[in-house]
């Protein structure tokens, strides 16, 4: 660089200084000073945003809460990770040990419980009753989470015990489930001739002790250990239940099992349908809450525009003292984001407080009618809360766009004249 150019640059540097500008922390401090200088106006504007955001959060949390309640009724935490397998065509495709091993080898499969189901007949007090007999294992019983009516637990420890359902009780004419406990029954399981293994002649005859009674199905059912069948070399089950290590893998695993030729079903499908229904419901809620939000946005826009008109001389002063256009724009953006952030935060807190009130009212109402289980019809997921607070700050960015642009573009001389 020539000496002449160097001197020119030095003179220019002396004129405009180094590349420094107002620190963001100071700009934030000035923005908040401006906000709190007009306390009443700021408070009223924030209340407007609180109402808008609060309405949206309250309604969405209600939607999520209802969905959770319904989902909880349909599936418990484990059963959502299960897949039921049925034979599409038993004669072509056997659900035997080899298939079980093949499925067990798939990734994300935690366990496989096969279920043998055959028609049977119970001889109790010289009276014969038809039942469906399910031969399975403890895992299957646990995953189905049957409601226990009598007994100390749903246990299928050995081939000498059985679990009956309440319909079976009715079929044999017993009203009190406790009376059936530890009673011996004679069971005949009818194995069709073409499904009998070599050397097996006739049906399975077994004497079993009833250890518990559960709520299950509308017909008479007996659950016995699968060893009742496997000990007699019967290897073809009619269905199976798979426990998957994580619920995200359920869909993929269903496809892989279907590719083997089996039909599958999972509570996960039901949950997906529930999610779909409540997704639509939440959009409707969002629409209702959105009305309040639109009013809040208009209130914010109004406040920012009035602020701009009131502070034209201040803007002129700051520009005269050397503030750049972008500094003025940033100041307005910070003020707007401050308003919406405060509104968003207090909106969420207000919605939470209101939900506690509603839950308390519903639970006391339920309590007065003999229901002691406490429930919540609201769900404030972390994602919902954080999205709303971040979204409200973003809303501030959108609302301030025109006022901030106008403030930055204002002629300094005209601004000083007011």
């Amino acid at each position, binding site marked *: 660089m020539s000496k002449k150019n160097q001197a020119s640059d030095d*003179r220019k540097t002396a004129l405009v200084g180094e590349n420094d500008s107002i620190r963001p922390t100071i700009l934030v*401090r*000035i923005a908040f000073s401006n906000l709190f200088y007009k306390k009443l106006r700021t408070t009223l504007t924030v209340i407007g945003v609180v109402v808008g955001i609060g309405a949206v959060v309250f309604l969405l949390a209600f939607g999520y809460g209802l969905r959770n309640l319904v989902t909880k009724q349909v599936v418990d935490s484990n059963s959502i990770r299960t897949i039921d397998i049925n034979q599409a065509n038993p004669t072509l495709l056997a659900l035997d040990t080899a298939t079980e091993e093949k499925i067990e080898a798939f990734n994300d499969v935690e366990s496989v419980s096969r279920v043998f189901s055959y028609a049977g007949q119970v001889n109790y007090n010289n009276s014969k009753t038809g039942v469906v007999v399910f031969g399975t294992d403890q895992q299957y019983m646990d995953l189905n989470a049957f409601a226990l009516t009598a007994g100390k637990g749903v246990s299928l420890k050995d081939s000498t015990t059985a679990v009956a359902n309440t319909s079976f009780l009715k079929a044999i004419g017993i009203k009190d489930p406790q009376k059936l406990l530890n009673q011996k029954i004679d069971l005949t399981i009818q194995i069709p001739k073409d499904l009998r293994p070599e050397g097996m002649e006739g049906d399975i005859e077994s004497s079993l002790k009833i250890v518990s009674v559960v709520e299950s199905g509308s017909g008479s059912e007996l659950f016995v250990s699968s060893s009742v069948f496997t000990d007699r070399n019967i290897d073809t089950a009619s269905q199976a239940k798979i426990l998957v290590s994580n619920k995200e893998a359920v869909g993929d695993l269903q496809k892989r099992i279907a590719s083997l030729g089996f039909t599958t079903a999972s509570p996960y499908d039901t949950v997906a349908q529930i999610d779909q229904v409540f997704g639509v419901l939440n959009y409707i809620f969002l629409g209702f809450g959105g009305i309040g939000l639109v009013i809040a946005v208009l209130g914010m826009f109004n406040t920012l525009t009035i602020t701009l008109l009131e502070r034209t001389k201040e803007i002129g002063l*700051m520009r005269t003292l050397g503030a*750049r256009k*972008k500094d003025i724009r940033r100041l307005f953006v910070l003020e707007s984001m401050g308003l919406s952030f405060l509104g968003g935060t207090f909106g969420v807190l207000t919605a939470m407080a209101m939900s506690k009130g509603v839950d308390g009212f519903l639970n006391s109402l339920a309590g007065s009618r003999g229901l002691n289980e406490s429930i919540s019809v609201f769900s404030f997921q972390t994602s919902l809360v954080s999205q709303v607070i971040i979204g409200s700050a973003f809303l501030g960015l959108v609302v301030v766009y025109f006022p901030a642009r106008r403030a930055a573009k204002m002629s300094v001389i005209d601004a000083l004249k007011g």
Partner: protein
Amino acid sequence: MTNLIEFQDVSKSFPVKHGTVDVLKNINFTVPKGSFTILFGPSGSGKSTILNTILGLEPPTSGQVQVNDVDLYSLSSDQRAKFRTHFVGMVTQDNYWVNSLSVIDNVALPLYLCGYRRMKARKLAKKSVENVHLERYLNSQPTVLSGGEQQRISVARATVKSPEILIADEPTGNLDTKSGNEVLNLLISQTGNGAGTVVMVTHNPEFLDYANNILHIKDGVITQENNYDGEVK
């Protein structure tokens, strides 16, 4: 003698409904470094337009404005904003404040805009307010002060970063004689050997005696009466 500001054939016209109004007509003048320059003339003669042009706020229609041998309007809008932050201090007839800020923060504002840290800026601002003997109002809102006190705080703000040029637009216009003289003495104290250059607009002929560089302006035309010999009267 070094010229800090130089107007070369500067004209400024404003568009009106039917045609244009020529406010500055091909004017030439210089402001020597360290001088106390008074821009004297009746209302509507173009004084404020000249000040705004020196501040980098009013680009001339033609001609060149040199400050420190740099063509001011060859700089971008942001660079001219930085020029006002670093190089210029300003006192106006009406006082302007950021109303939500205290006296000390208003005085520190030019330093904040220069990128100073809050602590350092407030320290320098306090010193500047002490120079105008109003430190008891440091944490007050500026609008609660009297007109004379506000004008002295305005001088404290304009001088807080020891600018090369101090622009004063009718700084005593709204003040009584006593307050006016106080403000004038504060401005004069900024000039002289090794200190800043003051350019003051006034239509009060009594102040002409204090100046060593007088620019008479009438109907957009300037005549210069330069008595500057390096000493302030």
